[in-house]
Each structure stands twice: as structure tokens, then as C-alpha cells.
């Protein structure tokens, strides 16, 4: 810091301290009030309610207990985690390839711009319209299935259906890998050409370049983004609901049906399930921010 910087920075403090503090707080206060009222307070009631009996409001571990002893509920976490993992890995891998091809593959610049715009759209394309698009493509009467049938191969005779786990994973990819493209693109752009040139000059093969230079640098960014993809799929609800009508027991779907107040629903268990989700997502986000920091050290 230079002298003039220090002077500049000190100048505002010459004013009366009280006005500075009150003014500053007036600016930030609406944010804290707003988020407390409409995010933090309503969400924290979930934590409390998961330790409450849904009828008597008495404090209890019963909900957590039910959750831990229900094969069905534990199963729903597994299905969600499995789906999120598969689509995060698959979407992450293909999204990375796509972004790398567009940035470093020697394609026209306009291709890259188009890919980014399209990714912005597709990563937000979910729910009913997305489900519908895949029904039009991959349902028994869908376009692609029709083409395959014409070629003499009907996947529906070989165990494939759109409305199960595999189908859902294919559909989720539609918003997973564009998200990967969007988030990983800056990291790929940040890789310097000199690194490749230097390793080539030292006689490294392209495998060695990837193994010892590119992947160690990109590693944290890749992993961090895939964690983001995991969270993205884990919290998804509308797409699965629209596609399968709640036939697949994802955690979000189970929560939806437990809390909706159906006769069979148990609100307390619904809240306990939500709490479990928040814990898993929180772990994912903590991992993401930690890795993000590591990446920022390399890529400026």
C-alpha cells in the first residue's frame, strides 16, 4: 500500500464515527431484515419442526428415529444421491469436454459464444417443459424411438423406459452439462498456452501434460464444479415430478408427499427428511467453497 493510498483510506474516518456507522447500517439493514424474514426464519423452523411432534408440538427425537429406521426413507436418500452423483459425473465430464473443445479445439469463436448463450438457456430449462421435451423424444411414441423402431430396434423391448431411473438421469443431463460448461469455462480460459508450450519443449507427451500439469491445476475447479452439479440435481424436484408423476422416490418427491398433508403423510418425518437434505447440501457447498478458494490461487 502506498502512502497516498493510506491517506485516502484514512480520510473518511476523520468524519464523526457515529454518522458513519449509522449510515452504513441503514444500507445493509434491509438486506438482513429481508433475508431473515423470508429465508432464515422460515427455513430454521424446519430444523425445529423436525424435532417436534407434528400434533402435540412436544420436543422429540421420534421423527429422526423414524427416518433412520425406515428402509424406504433411507432408500430415497440413496436414489437421490445416486442420481445426483451419476448426473454430476456424467454431466461434468461431457460438459468439460464440450467447453474444452469450444475454447481450445480451434473452433470458430462464434461457436463458443453460441455455446455459452445456449448453456445459459439450457441450464435454466427444467421442470414441465423439459419433461415434455424428453417425452416427445424418448417416450414409446417419441421421435427418436420412432426412428429406432424404423431401423428395427425398439429400446422399450430391451428394458429401457423413460420413466425410470435411467430415463431421469438422461433428462437431468440436459441441465447438468450446460451448467458445467458455464462454470468451468473461465477456468479453462485461465489456462495459459505457455504451460502447454513449456511442457512440449521439455519433451512431455500430451498424456504427461494432462497428468502432471493441466489436471493438477484444473482439479479443484473440476471437483468443485461437480459438487455444484451434485447439489443442483439433489435439490431438483419439478422435473422428476413432471416426468414420472412422483413414481420415483427421490427425497424431494417424498418430502413433497409427506408434507402435502395427505392422509398418509407425516409432516414431522417430512421435516426430518428436509433437515437431512440441508445437511448433505451444506456439506457439498462447504466443499465447493473450499475448492473454489484453492482454484482462485492458480487462475487469475
Amino acid at each position, binding site marked *: 500500500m502506498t502512502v497516498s493510498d493510506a491517506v485516502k483510506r484514512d480520510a473518511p474516518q476523520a468524519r464523526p464515527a457515529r454518522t458513519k456507522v449509522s449510515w452504513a447500517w441503514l444500507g445493509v439493514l434491509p438486506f438482513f431484515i*429481508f433475508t431473515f424474514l*423470508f429465508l432464515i426464519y422460515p427455513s430454521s423452523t424446519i430444523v425445529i419442526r423436525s424435532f417436534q411432534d407434528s400434533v402435540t408440538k412436544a420436543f422429540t427425537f421420534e421423527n429422526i428415529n423414524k427416518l433412520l429406521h425406515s428402509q424406504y426413507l433411507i432408500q430415497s436418500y440413496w436414489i437421490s444421491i445416486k442420481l445426483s452423483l451419476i448426473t454430476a459425473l456424467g454431466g461434468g465430464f461431457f460438459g468439460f469436454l464440450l467447453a474444452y473443445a469450444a475454447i481450445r479445439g480451434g473452433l470458430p469463436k462464434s461457436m463458443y459464444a453460441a455455446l455459452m448463450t445456449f448453456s445459459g*438457456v439450457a441450464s*435454466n430449462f427444467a421442470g414441465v417443459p423439459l419433461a415434455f421435451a424428453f417425452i*416427445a423424444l424418448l417416450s414409446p411414441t417419441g421421435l427418436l424411438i420412432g426412428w429406432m423402431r424404423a431401423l428395427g430396434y425398439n429400446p422399450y423391448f430391451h428394458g429401457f423406459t423413460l420413466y425410470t431411473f435411467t430415463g431421469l438421469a438422461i433428462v437431468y443431463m440436459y441441465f447438468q452439462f450446460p451448467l458445467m460448461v458455464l462454470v468451468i469455462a473461465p477456468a479453462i480460459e485461465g489456462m495459459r498456452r505457455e504451460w502447454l508450450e513449456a511442457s512440449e519443449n521439455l519433451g512431455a507427451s500430451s498424456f504427461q501434460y494432462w497428468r502432471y500439469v493441466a489436471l493438477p491445476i484444473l482439479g479443484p475447479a473440476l471437483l468443485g464444479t461437480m459438487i455444484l452439479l451434485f447439489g443442483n440435481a*439433489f435439490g431438483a424436484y419439478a422435473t422428476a415430478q413432471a416426468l414420472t408423476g412422483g413414481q420415483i422416490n427421490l427425497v424431494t418427491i417424498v418430502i413433497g408427499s409427506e408434507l402435502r398433508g395427505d392422509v398418509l403423510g407425516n409432516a414431522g418425518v417430512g421435516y426430518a427428511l428436509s433437515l437431512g437434505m440441508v445437511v448433505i447440501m451444506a456439506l457439498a457447498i462447504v466443499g465447493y467453497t473450499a475448492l473454489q478458494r484453492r482454484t482462485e490461487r492458480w487462475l487469475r
Partner: protein
Amino acid sequence: MKRGKFWAWFIMFLGILYFFLPLVATFIFSLKARLGELSFQAYFNIFKSPQFLYNFGASVVWATFTIIVGILIFVPTAFVIRLRVPKARSPVEFITLLPFVIPPIVYVFGLVRTYSQPPLLIVDNPALLVAAYTILSMPYMYRSVDTGIRAIDVRTLTEAAQSLGASWPTIILRVILPNIRTAILSGAFLSFAIVIGELILAGYLVKPAFAPYMAYVMQQKAFEPAAMAIVSFALTWIAMGIIQLIGRGRGVQVGAGH
């Protein structure tokens, strides 16, 4: 180099195939509303339907208010943090990430239960829906605005304005806002896309909106929902295209609630 180009084109080709096949299938399907011929009948039907206009209009209204509330809250916050209370940065950033951590389906139940009992009986008030949408789009809106504010020299601009005798509202409205116009627009379009496509909140808060209406029509009809899917995709694409045009890809996008 030639070999490199080939694999790049190949990957791109696969990507384009996966991107476009579902859309092509939806589009072709949407043209089949009249038996035995291709027509835009389904599109005429949806645009003729007062229900469509009513629900779509409602979503546009929610989106507009969401964007206004977002600007009113997040612009001053990011500005003040940058200028006066850098200490507030990490708690604020943490809070803006929370909507990613809390799945929308979980969030909406917390919201409904909290505000459906006295003395907080405001669950029927449309303002609650707008507030919830503002929270849902907060990660996008706040990050866009914050990126925009970091990119300009807030301190010099503010001091220059102050020394010319400008009041705080004048500084924010006439100096800061015009300088971060692009960032705000990019946040606004993302918020718009989110609100238009959002299914859960409006559904559980029982308000008219585009996505729940589309979900409803999907159960009743065959061709109209396909047409609506194409329309909503086109609308989102136009919004994103505008962001790219004015922002040159600077808009920050991280995750979305599905």
C-alpha cells in the same frame, strides 16, 4: 492440429445433437395438432386461450416485481459493503448462497407453515410470493450486482459526486446505477427466466403462474403443452441472448433450483 480440430468438431456435434434433438422432437410434435397435416394450430390455440394469457401475464407481473424488489435491496447492500462495511461481505455472501443449500421444495413448506398462522397470516398475500421469488433469484441477482460494483471504482465515483454536492439518493440513482446497468440487466433477465419457469412456489402458495398452468395443461392436452414448451424456451433464449449482447457474457450464473 488437424486431428485436434476433428475431435473438437466431433464433441461439438454430439453436444448439438443432445441439445437440439429434444427441442426438435417437441417442435415437430407441437405441429401435429391437426390430424394428418403439420400446422401451427396448437400455437393459435394457446395464444387464443385467455387462461394462457392470464397465467403468463401473472408470471410476468411476479417477475417484474421480483426484479424491482431485488434491485431495491441488493444494489444498496452491495454498494454499502463495497464502500463502508467490508466486514459484512462474508455473512452476506453466505446468506446469498443459502437458496442453493435449501431445496425449493423444503423452502416452500417452511414459508407456508411460517406465514399461515396468526399473527403472521400473510400466506394469501401476493407480496409473499414476490418475496419468495426474490429470495430464489437472490444468488443470481446479488452476484451480478456485486460483480458489477466490483468492476467500477465506487470510491472515486462516490467522492467525486459528494464533492460536487450530491446527496446519497442522487449518488445511487444517478451515478452508481447507470454504471452497473449491464450487471443489473443480466441479473434481471436471469430472475425473469427463473420466475417464468418456477413451478413449486406459485403452486403451493396458490397463485396464478405460467409453469403450474403448463403442468396442468400437460395433463389435459397433448399438443398445446409442446407448443408452450417451445414458447417458454424461445422466451428464455431471447432473454439470455439479450444478456450476452449487452453483457458480453459477464453475467455470473451458478446453479438453479429445479
